[in-house]
């Protein structure tokens, strides 16, 4: 529909008027509205918006709404508010100003309306120009096959020492069941071995001697050394209990000394 066809002649012809009015009502939720109607009517005056007759425009609008209401029951509130305001404006423009009038004059109000219409028209024009511009992807093409930047992913692995040891221990624990005894046999110096060694060596050392000097001297690792220490101590305790040797320790954690008991000889 050509909105510009709404002309002077049309005002007196309800048939013609009905056409734009129906269209407006159908589209009330869209961009159409009272200002849109006014802009339409103003353009119909076929002059620059700066030179339109606001009084004439107000009358056109009021006629328009009148006729719209006679055709359709419902006219949205926006349109009625505008009609009321334009009726007020019309009275302000027509009646000579009274002394106690407050607020802006009729001319000032008319000026404001004209300005709003110009503003709306400017935005309409801008929207059109925006779409006629150099729209990327429509008027100007970007590269059809962009060579996206290749991303080289470097994985940085995270692992703490604790996790590493834990993994090893856990693994050992699971796997260890297969041969734990064989492994322990090699490393542990048994109490029986310690007893035999102590009995064999005790006679050759009649004086108080450090128990630790009875340890075997082929202990390669700290573990087997500790194992031998423990077993030798246990062996000495056993022999002391049997009354075969004497034990003494000068101070807490001090060296433990042993001596063969003379009377057992």
């Amino acid at each position, binding site marked *: 529909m050509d909105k510009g066809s709404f002309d002077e002649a049309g005002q007196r012809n309800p048939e013609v008027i009905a056409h734009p009015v129906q269209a407006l009502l159908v589209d009330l939720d869209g*961009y159409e509205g009272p200002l849109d109607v006014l802009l339409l009517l103003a353009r119909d005056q076929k002059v620059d918006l700066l030179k339109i007759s606001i009084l004439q425009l107000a009358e056109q609008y009021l006629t328009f709404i009148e006729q719209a209401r006679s055709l359709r029951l419902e006219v949205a509130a926006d349109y009625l508010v505008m009609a009321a305001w334009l009726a007020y404006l019309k009275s302000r423009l027509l009646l000579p100003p009274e002394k106690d009038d407050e607020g802006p004059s009729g001319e000032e109000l008319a000026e404001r309306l004209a300005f709003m219409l110009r503003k709306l028209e400017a935005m309409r024009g801008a929207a059109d120009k925006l779409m006629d511009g150099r729209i990327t992807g429509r008027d100007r093409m970007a590269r059809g096959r962009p060579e996206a930047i290749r991303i080289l992913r470097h994985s940085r692995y995270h692992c703490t020492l604790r996790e590493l040891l834990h993994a090893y221990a856990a693994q050992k624990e699971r796997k260890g069941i297969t041969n734990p005894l064989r492994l322990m046999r090699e490393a542990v110096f048994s109490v029986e071995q310690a007893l035999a060694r102590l009995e064999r060596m005790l006679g050759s050392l009649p004086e108080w001697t450090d128990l630790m000097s009875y340890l075997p001297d082929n202990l390669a690792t700290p573990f087997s050394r500790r194992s031998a220490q423990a077993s030798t101590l246990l062996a000495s305790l056993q022999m002391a209990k049997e009354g075969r040797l004497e034990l003494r320790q000068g101070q807490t954690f001090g060296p433990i000394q042993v001596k063969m008991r003379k009377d057992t000889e």
Partner: protein
Amino acid sequence: MSVDPGHVRMAEALLFASREPLDEATLAERLPEDADIAAILASIEETYKGRGVNLVRLAGKWGFLTAPDLAWLLEMERETTRKLSRAALETLAIIAYHQPVTRAEIEEIRGVGLSRGTMDVLFDAGWIRPRGRRRTPGRPVTYGVTEDFLIHFGLDDIKDLPGFDEMKAAGLLNLEPGSIFSDLATTEEDPIDPEEEEI
């Protein structure tokens, strides 16, 4: 103006390869430290002026685009874009020219209430964004356009909007309380403070 041709080649390759326009910082990051980015870009712009592909500045970023006069040739490559409704287009224009602008201000300019879907469509397209809040009663959200908007509509800056300067000079972009109805409401509140808080 003498620019290192090696640097020009690198910038060309980067700009050609990229899907999106690149800003100068990104280029500087990838080119040798002593590269004079501004001079390189000026040189490339000059080289491609008049060719089928031009170097274009959009939203402060640089990219190659086909020459606008060849649009007719490239219909097959044209992206199908959703057609905006008249209301959405008008709203978008108002936001672009008046930003930051509140919903109420948009409605006032258009003289009609804004249906919810209208703003949604624009958000969806990635063309508008909330910018902050007006320091007025109710602290309404203000809206502005996005970088994508500038890129899509082929603009380097909001000042490049068609007729922006003229409209501004004519006062058409002022958001003063010039509503014709503002005098019907007796209380004259100051609806707009140009200052706004960032969200």
